[in-house]
Structure formats: C-alpha cells, structure tokens
C-alpha cells in the first residue's frame, strides 16, 4: 500500500493580527498528537511559530537567490541587458552596467541573452530555512534576511525544498504572511484547503473580503475561523452566510487566552472552550480530506 500524499492546509487572513499564528501553532500541536504534522512558517518577514516550541532547536541553512554580476572585461556595451530587463534592475549607464540587486527578480533574461556571457548569475543570500523535529511534529521556519525586499523567492524555495523532505508527513500546515499580495498567493499555492482567520470587526471583514476574492481567483477551497468571537460585530457571519463560506470555529474573545499566548504558551490544555473550537477545525480538516481523497 502506498502512503497517501500529505494533506496541505494554509492558514491565511487578509488582515494582520487576526490570529493566524495562534491557530497554526495550536492546530499543529493538536494534530501531531495523533498524526504526523509539519508546520511551515511562511510569514518570512517575521516568522514566530518557533517561539511556541522552545524545546525544538532549529537547524538552519542559508538559502540563496541568483543575481547577475557584471563582468566588465567581457562586456561589449551592446545595451541588450538594459533593454531586456522588465524590472529596470540592470542598467547601462555610459560605459558601465549597474545591477540593482533589490529590483532583480532572478528571471535570468539578461544573463541568458547576453551574447558575451558578461552577466553570469551569482548566489546572493536570501534568508534561511530551519528545520526541527520532535516526535510527530516537524517545524520548518523560513526566514527572510533583514533588508531583503522580496518574500516570494524564499517562499517558493521553501515549498520546493519541502517536496523531498516531508513527503511522508500526514498533514502540512502553512502559516502564511498577512495581506493578499504575491507572498500570500505563493504561500497558499500548494494548499488543498485554506483556513482564513478573521475577527468580528469592520477591519476584519474588509480584509476578509479581499482575501476571499484573491483565493477565489486561485480556486482554493476556504473555511473561516472567527477569532475574538463575541465582541459584538455580526457582519462577518452574515457575509460568510451570503457567500456560502463555512464558519468552522469561533474562538472566544478572552483575556486569559491573550495573556497566555503573549507569554508564548500553547493554551488548549487550560481552556476547554478553545479546545472544543480547535477540535471542530481538526474534524473539518479530516472530513475535507476524506471527501477530496
């Protein structure tokens, strides 16, 4: 019998600070008690899942992107690179060619098209990928180098690296970056299911709508988790009903949960209501997996 491929769940939001990481780390903890689970922190600009697993020590390695480097001796100043670069990252100014590393998208066009091989691609540090394992839980942290502007190349590399490393895991959870731009699209791309964490405020609703519109374009099945439930704004639920989006959990607004979480603690054991809401999420994930197997 062959092992089924891992089931991939992305946790995303739209609005920042709704509780993506909160949901991701708690789900990972809960799922890994009965199945193997890999939690991948793709919020590469500020990864913090590892804070909740202090006993797991990440083994990190450097990840690179490829940037062209001008070779003055080989260059005939034909100007083709400058004309080719869609991102204005390679510019010929008089008798020199300048590469703006931060604008480069590593598309190789200038390097491949150069008739004199005067723009060979060179490695430039993009960030790190760290991995730690403990029993059934694997933690992967993708961390962008400070000052690096583009998150997408690192997110893509993390996905690619994981293809070989976590094939045997039952579940993969992607803790996505906030927002609805390219990094979110890249982070959620391999997901079989996207859980959108929102909060019952007008800001939460506004950004939830944006996230739903984005993910509909990429045709991802979605389910909604309302965090800080009970602060009185009901439009989020009405929106979900109209749009036929299943609300699979309502995590209560609780100072006790917030305090424990702020200290870097996993809260479930001490909070039966939270535990039951998270069980709803796990049940939904399992059901969705079986229905789509």
């Amino acid at each position, binding site marked *: 019998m062959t092992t089924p491929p891992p089931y991939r769940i992305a946790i995303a939001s739209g609005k920042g600070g709704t509780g993506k990481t909160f949901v991701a780390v708690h789900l990972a903890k809960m799922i890994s008690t009965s199945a193997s689970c890999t939690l991948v922190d793709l919020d590469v600009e500020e990864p913090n899942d590892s804070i909740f697993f202090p006993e797991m020590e990440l083994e990190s390695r450097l990840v690179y992107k490829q940037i062209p480097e001008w070779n003055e001796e080989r260059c005939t100043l034909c100007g083709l690179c*400058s004309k080719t670069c869609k*991102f*204005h*990252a390679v*510019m010929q*100014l*008089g008798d020199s060619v*300048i590469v*703006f590393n*931060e*604008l480069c998208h590593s598309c190789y066009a200038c390097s491949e098209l150069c008739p004199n091989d005067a723009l060979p691609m060179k490695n430039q540090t993009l960030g790190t990928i760290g991995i730690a394992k403990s029993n059934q839980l694997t933690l992967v942290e993708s961390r962008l180098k400070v000052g690096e502007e583009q998150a997408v190349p690192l997110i893509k590399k993390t996905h690619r690296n994981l293809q070989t490393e976590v094939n045997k895991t039952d579940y993969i959870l992607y803790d996505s970056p906030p927002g609805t731009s390219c990094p979110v699209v890249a982070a959620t791309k391999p997901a079989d299911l996207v859980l959108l964490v929102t909060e019952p405020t007008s800001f939460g609703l506004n950004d939830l709508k944006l996230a739903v519109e984005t993910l509909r374009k990429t045709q991802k099945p979605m389910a909604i988790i309302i965090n800080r439930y009970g602060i009185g704004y009901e439009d989020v639920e009405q929106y979900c009903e109209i749009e036929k989006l299943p609300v699979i959990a309502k995590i209560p607004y609780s100072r006790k949960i917030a305090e424990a979480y702020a200290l870097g603690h996993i809260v479930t054991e001490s909070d039966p209501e939270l535990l039951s809401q998270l069980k709803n999420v796990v049940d939904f994930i399992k059901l969705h997996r079986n229905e789509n197997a």
Partner: protein
Amino acid sequence: MKIVFTSQGPDMDSQMDSRFGRAAYLVSFSSDDNTVVAISNSEVASEAHGAGSATSKKLFELKPDVLITGNGPGETASKVIKLMNIKTFANAHDMTLYEAYEAFKQGKLKELAL
C-alpha cells in the same frame, strides 16, 4: 549649465513634481542659451517597481549638471545620481519651475548629500 527639474508639465511654467521616480516629466533647462527640453515620464506610472531606476536612466541620458526636485530621490536613483556626479537640490515644493530656478540661483534650495 544644464538643469533638470522634476515637473508636472512640459514647460517652465509648470508646477514642480515633488516625486523623482514617478515625476510626470523631466524638464531640462540650459541656462547658457535658455532652451527647454521636456521628456514625458508617463509610462513609469504603470510600473509597480523600479520607477526610480527607470527615471534615472532618462536623467543619465540628459546629462545635467544639476537636478532640482521635491522630496529627493530614493535609494536606487540616488546611486545613479551619485555615480553621475549630479548636484541635487530638493525641497522645491509648491512652485513653478521658474520659481524653483530663481530659488536655486538665490541659494534657497538645499543641496542633498547623496
């Protein structure tokens, strides 16, 4: 002396554009013979990134001695401008190009150390 202004319009009566990378026009004025040349920068509006880089390429081709702008160029453009040894004056907000030129002559604009 050749001076380039970041401008909202194509002539010396136009208002200054305080932006560098996304300036609507680059207007080049030669104080030797009072000629004015305007270059439209409108295609940069559709670029998500690299506006500073694209505009500084145009600036390079104009080869001015002085750049007069509003907010001051960003990081990418600053590298190019530094390489070209163009003296850059900022803070020319809310004035026409002529007024900015007068302010420059009277030493009222601040030179940027790039």
